[in-house]
Structure formats: structure tokens, C-alpha cells
């Protein structure tokens, strides 16, 4: 599996819906346009929540995959 570069990592493991995307939204504010956020989550709702959030907010979901019992998402911050 190719690794994706990230500028910031958010560990949202153990958090329940909608907290992974609430934390994602807050973490994105720390980044500059074009930078990449890695989100780790265990809530299965994130499988649909993170893509929906990216679609709604105009941020780009670069890829997602599953690791040892948790979900990983890479999101690129949209241009202002």
C-alpha cells in the first residue's frame, strides 16, 4: 500500500458520531489550503460520515483504508 503524506494527525479513535467529524473540522482549521490531515477513527459511522463531510465542505478525501481495527482517512484542505 502506498503511503500518503500528512501534515497533521487526528486520533479520533474511541469517539462516537459525530465527534470524529467535529474534531476533523476543528483540526482542518489548523491547516493551510493543500495540506493533508490524517484521521484515525473506530466509529463505523465514520465510513459514511467522513466522505459526506468532505463532500459538504469541499475538502478532498484522498483515500481511506482500514488498519488494525481502525479506519484511516486522508483529507486535503480545500482552497479558501
Amino acid at each position, binding site marked *: 500500500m502506498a503511503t500518503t503524506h500528512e501534515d497533521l494527525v487526528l486520533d479520533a479513535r474511541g469517539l*462516537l458520531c*459525530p465527534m470524529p467529524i*467535529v474534531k476533523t473540522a*476543528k483540526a482542518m482549521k489548523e491547516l493551510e489550503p493543500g495540506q493533508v490531515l490524517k484521521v484515525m477513527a473506530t466509529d463505523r459511522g465514520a465510513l459514511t460520515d467522513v466522505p459526506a*463531510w468532505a463532500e459538504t*465542505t469541499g475538502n478532498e478525501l484522498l483515500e481511506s483504508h482500514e488498519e488494525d481495527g481502525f479506519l484511516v482517512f486522508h483529507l486535503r484542505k480545500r482552497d479558501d
Partner: protein
Amino acid sequence: MADQEKLVIMVTHGPEDPELATIPFVMAGAAVASDVDVVMGFQGEGCRLVQRGVAETVSAPEFAPLAGLLDSVRDLGGKLLVCSPCVKSRGIEDELVDGAEVCAAARFVAEITSATNSLVY
């Protein structure tokens, strides 16, 4: 970006129904995280959820605890409007959480008619 969207979420259940008390906060949290303006309106027993110290006591199975959801909604700019007669009848008008604003029916109507959509729980 499209025009700013706004969601009004009316809350009529309180601590007596933790699940229906929590779900509107879940929706509000998802909305503020998605750059949607959120106005939460509390009526009837829903008012209890913005009485100081009550949110900390409400938690539904498989849902995030209500107090953390309330904090997140406020942190990301959600507004909390509370029905005036409802808080007076319960004697809690001086016990509301920071950020809660007491208002009457016409304000709720103005918020709802100017919103993209509204939800009632």
C-alpha cells in the same frame, strides 16, 4: 461556496428521554462541523437540557455524551434559543448554561422561515 446554509433544530424532549434528547445534538454537531449555521431551539422539557448541570447527566447508549456534544455545538458557533414561558414555568430562567438565549415565539418563527431547513425532535 454556495450561499450559507442554516439548519434550525427544535428540541422538545429532555432528560426523561436520553436518546431523543441526544439525537438533536448529534445532528447539530454534524451540521456545525459541516459549515452549516445551526440554531437549536429548546421548548417544553427540552429546556432542561440547557439548565446548568443537566447536560452532564444525560447519556444514551451508543451515543456520545450530551455534555460534550453541547460544548462542541457552542464551540463551532451554534446558537441556543430557549422558550421563554417554558423556562419561566420551570423556574429555571436564571440557571441556563452560558450562551443560551431566552426568546419568544416570533423569534423562533423568524429563525425557521429564514433557514434552509428545520428539524423537530
